[in-house]
Each structure stands twice: as structure tokens, then as C-alpha cells.
């Protein structure tokens, strides 16, 4: 039999019993759709977390004061176990490392901001002009903190979008004087709204020069130093250079923790990737169920079409031809179900994205392909038994049946 004839024959046979065909395609499509939707959810979670971490900035190395693990005895620890401060000078020293492009110190505290009788508590972050580049944050209005000596700073502040809305409403905020803590600052810039963010939400942040923040909180230490490496490849180098510089500056004691964003990201990536696989596996069970249904329906079909099979044999069809015809039909129904399920799954994922815009519920490519592939394979695999049964029917007995 020629391939186009085979396909037409299988199509006509499928169309000859619409209810059976519809049920089968539906079962298969539900299986595939569940794979697509569930992996979209799993992979969406992974993407969400990865995106949030990426929003911290790219090629980022983060320096924290203090060491989580203690390695060996150090004379310094014998006298005092208070970790050394991570100072602005330390941060500035990191700029000497060859693999480092930018450095942004970060001092954080809470304070009150007031203007025109309105007062609210805010998180104040002291940093430098580099911060906006390191974190890749967009500015909505005005300019960011000025370049200059890190140990001095003008009384200028950049506020988050939400704070602008709450304090000024529709009135212009740029150039206004506000009181933060016991100091007066002029607002020189407004951050663009970035929505949710892990850790600090810049929408509710007030950014001031790092020296003023330290003075405000009466502290010498930095909360973090954000270091941007030259490139993705130099992250590890930047990390070791930063560790070495700070160790040298702290009298040979490694009392800071240097983490790379990549390490954190990779962990989450792996964790949630595994979760997605597990979910896909559960969804695949429904595909196996659909496969068994294909077998069942095809077996019934063979019984119903016994006399037709006998006729085909009398007309010169070999067992192979009949087997191929039934397999083609099973494959076509599975394929139709798989394609329908694929579309349904994507529609489902699109609805989820509509309902939760922050959640990137896109099914991964591998899941879509695996879903389609599994549907086809199960369909054909479970189609083999009925097809063989059809091919083996005795033509005399089959013809006698009506």
C-alpha cells in the first residue's frame, strides 16, 4: 500500500467511528496537556527564582562581613572574636583587583522619612554612584548619586517609586527637600518601579551616599559589598582576588564571606529543574493511561471490523498491510491527540500567565517535545497488539462474520 493511501485509509477508518475517535484523541490530549501545563508550572517556578536572582545584577560577586566557617586557629581570634568591620576602604581596595569592573558598597538601616507632615519608616541604603550600574537598575527621573569621594557625600537622596507615590502623590518630587532621620536630603532621582524583588525591594528604598548612611546609623561597617566582575568567565577570579585583598587588609585573617551569584543560582536551578522533571514524570502516567485506552479502543475496533479485515485479506492484503493500516490509525489518533494536547497545554499555560503575570509559566521545549514523543510512542506501542491481532485473523472466519 502506498503511504498516502495508507494515511487516507486510516483517516477514513477513524472518521467512520467519530465517537471512538473523539474519545481517544481527548484522552491522549489530556495526557499531553497535563505534561505541558505541569512542566510549565515547574519550569515557571525555576525561571521565576532564577530571574529574581539575576535581577540582583549580572556577574555579581557579593562580599559579606564575617565568616560562616572557621578554619583553624588564628591569633586574632584568641584576643577577640568580633569580626573586623568591612569598611569603605576595604570596598575601595577591591577596585584594584584586575578582574573587577565595578564595586558598590552597601550600608543598610531603617530610618524615617518625612516631608510636609507625612512620615513613614523606610529602609535606607547607603551606597555610591556605581550601585545603579552594578545592579542594572533603571532610573525613572532625575539622576543617580554623584560620583566622587566615597568618604564624603552630598546630602542627596534617590527614592523608590512607591515612596514617591506615598509622600508626594501627583506632586513633583525632584528637587524637594526631605528629612531622613535627623538630616535633610534633596531628592535628585527616582528609581523606576521594578515590582517584586528578592531581598530589598527598590520600590521602597531610599538611596543616599554611603558615608552619610554610615554616619546616620553610627556604624563603620558595610552590610555588603557588591562586586561586578569583568565577565562571566572572570567571576571566579574576581572572587579569589577579592578574598585575597581583604585577607591582606585584615591582617591575614579571612573574616569575610565571598559568594557568587552563580553558585546560588545553580543550586536553585538544579533543585527546581529536578522538581520539574518529577512533575513531568507524574504527568507522564496519564499518558501511559491514554496509551492503554488506545489499545483498548483499537482492540474493540479490530473486533468490530473483523469482516472488513477478512475482506481486505480476500482482496489480496497481506498480514503486514493490515498491521500497518491499524498501526497507522493508532499513530494518527495519537498524533492528533498529542497536537491537540500540545495546543491545550500551551493555552493552559497562557491562562496561568494571564492570571499571574509575574510567573513565567512557559513549558520548556524539552517537555513539549517529550510529551509529543511519548504520546506517539505509547500510541504506536499500544497499537501493536491490536494490529497484530487484526493481521492474524483467519480470513474465512472473519468473512463469515457480519
Amino acid at each position, binding site marked *: *500500500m*502506498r503511504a*498516502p*493511501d495508507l494515511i487516507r*485509509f486510516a483517516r*477514513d*477508518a477513524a*472518521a*467512520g467511528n467519530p465517537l471512538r475517535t473523539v474519545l481517544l484523541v481527548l484522552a491522549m490530549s489530556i495526557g499531553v496537556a497535563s505534561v505541558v501545563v505541569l512542566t510549565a508550572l515547574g519550569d515557571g517556578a525555576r525561571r521565576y527564582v532564577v530571574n529574581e536572582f539575576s535581577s540582583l545584577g549580572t556577574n555579581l560577586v557579593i562580599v559579606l562581613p564575617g565568616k560562616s566557617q572557621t578554619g583553624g586557629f588564628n591569633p586574632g581570634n584568641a584576643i577577640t572574636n568580633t569580626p573586623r568591620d568591612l569598611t569603605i576602604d576595604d570596598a575601595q581596595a577591591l577596585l584594584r583587583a584586575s578582574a573587577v569592573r565595578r564595586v558598590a558598597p552597601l550600608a543598610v538601616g531603617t530610618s524615617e522619612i518625612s516631608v510636609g507632615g507625612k512620615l513613614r519608616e523606610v529602609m535606607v541604603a547607603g551606597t555610591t554612584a556605581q550601585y545603579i550600574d552594578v545592579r542594572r537598575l533603571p532610573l525613572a527621573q532625575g539622576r543617580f548619586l554623584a560620583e566622587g569621594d566615597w568618604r564624603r557625600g552630598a546630602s542627596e537622596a534617590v527614592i523608590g517609586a512607591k515612596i514617591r507615590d506615598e509622600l508626594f502623590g501627583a506632586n513633583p518630587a525632584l528637587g524637594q527637600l526631605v528629612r531622613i532621620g535627623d538630616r535633610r536630603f534633596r531628592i535628585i532621582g527616582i528609581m523606576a518601579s521594578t515590582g517584586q524583588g528578592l531581598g530589598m525591594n527598590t520600590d521602597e528604598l531610599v538611596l543616599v551616599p554611603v558615608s552619610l548612611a554610615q554616619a546616620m546609623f553610627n556604624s563603620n561597617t558595610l552590610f555588603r559589598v557588591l562586586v561586578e566582575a569583568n565577565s562571566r568567565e572572570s567571576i571566579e577570579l574576581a572572587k579569589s582576588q577579592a578574598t585575597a585583598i581583604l585577607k591582606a587588609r585584615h591582617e591575614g585573617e579571612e573574616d569575610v564571606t565571598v559568594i557568587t551569584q552563580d553558585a546560588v543560582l545553580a543550586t536553585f536551578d538544579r533543585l527546581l529543574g529536578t522538581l520539574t522533571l518529577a512533575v513531568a514524570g507524574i504527568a507522564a502516567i496519564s499518558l501511559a493511561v491514554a496509551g492503554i485506552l488506545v489499545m483498548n479502543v483499537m482492540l474493540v475496533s479490530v473486533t468490530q471490523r473483523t*469482516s*472488513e479485515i477478512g*475482506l*481486505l*485479506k*480476500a*482482496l*489480496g*492484503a*497481506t*498480514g*503486514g*498491510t493490515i498491521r500497518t493500516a491499524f498501526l497507522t490509525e493508532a499513530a494518527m489518533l495519537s498524533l492528533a491527540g498529542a497536537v491537540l494536547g500540545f495546543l491545550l497545554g500551551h493555552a493552559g499555560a497562557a491562562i496561568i500567565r494571564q492570571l499571574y503575570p509575574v510567573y513565567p509559566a512557559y513549558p520548556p521545549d524539552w517537555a513539549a517535545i517529550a510529551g509529543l514523543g511519548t504520546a506517539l510512542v505509547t500510541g504506536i506501542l499500544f497499537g501493536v497488539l491490536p494490529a497484530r491481532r487484526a493481521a492474524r485473523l483467519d*480470513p*474465512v472466519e472473519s*468473512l463469515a462474520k*457480519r
Partner: protein
Amino acid sequence: MMNEPLIALSGVERVFQLGDSEVHALHQLDLRIDSGEYVAVMGPSGSGKSTLLNLLGLLDRPNAGTYRLEGRDVTTLSPEEQARVRSERIGFVFQSFHLVPRLTAAENIALPMVLAGTAPSERRKRVDQALKDYGLTNRAGHRPNELSGGQRQRVAIARATIMQPAVILADEPTGNLDRATGEEVMRLLEELNGKGVTLIVVTHDAALGARAQRQLRMEDGELRQDSRQCAPRT
């Protein structure tokens, strides 16, 4: 090759197992049918005439004996080779027509060629000719349930002849038809025989059997009578 009969059965046995007992549907059957003959196989039900037809059509295998079709021993062929012989040399006409209900008349006629893998252009040509020959041109797109009994059997005959077989095996071809329609169907089959196609008709209708040049009367799986009448062919 000239002396070789179309069909030669020798010592053919067909035994069915029914519970404990063995039923000899065919017993020590020897039969020669020459090319172009018109043979009627008659006998009461259970006499083995349908079994004989299935055997001749390679739908069934004998338990013993040999069956030579056009000088070739076909009992030892593999199922695939037998299917090929059925496809090319044998045409079946059934009592209950056996048309595929979801296919149109034209598609039913084309079915043997589809199964054999004939090219679509050749198929169309032959189907168009067959539709014309059997007066079905304006019925080509109709499905079997939209056709009358006579039309259905004409479709079935067109299908049986589309591969230009050497022999047509008809099992009670008029059994489901009224007298007039049955007459018309027999006339079509006899016309084919007139063109040189060997025609073997199984029937229990004596009047129908009498039309053939040769009558085989079967009883209990044995050939009881083999009579020829030398009626001139038209």
C-alpha cells in the same frame, strides 16, 4: 503450459475439529478446471462447497493434498505470497456483497488496487472504465447504504474484476437479490466468462447451476457428480 489446467486439486483433504469429532469438509478431492470454464458448484449446505471455494481462493489451506494454480503449487506458499496470488489472480464475489460501508462505490472498486499499491493515475483510469462498464458512473460517489442491492453487487463484481484476475469465485452471488436483479448480476458474470475469465459459482439454486457449462455436485465433502453440457457459448 497449454495442457496445464488452470486449477488442479489432487487428494485434497480439509478436516475441521469440532469438539471431539473430526469433520471431513473435503475428502480426497480431485478436480481439474481449465481456463475459461464456467463451473457451478452445487450441493446441500454442509456439503463442503463453501470450503472448496475458500480453498480455491487461498483463504484456507488443505490438511493434505496439493493445489496447483496455473501450474504452480500454491499450498506451500507463504501467507504473503498467497496474498499476492489472491490480489493478482483471484476475484471474489460474496453473497452479502462485503462492501466497506465508509467508502464510496468508486473507492470500493479501487480497494484491491490500493492494497496492491497501484499508481493513482492508473487506478483512476481503470475505476472510470469499470464504472462505465457496469453502469455505475452516476453512482460513483455514493456509499453502499445509498445503493440498491443490484448496484451493490455490481460494485462488488467491478471490484472483483478490477485486477483482471484469471478466475472469479462467486459464493451465492444472487442469494441476497430478487429474481430480476439476480438475473442481471448473473448476466454480468457470464459476460466476463465470455471474455475468457474462469467463473466458479457456488449455489444451491438448481436453476442457477443449470446455466453453467459444467456442474459439480457435492455431498459430504465428496464430489458426487461432474457433468458437462456442451452448450454453445454466446
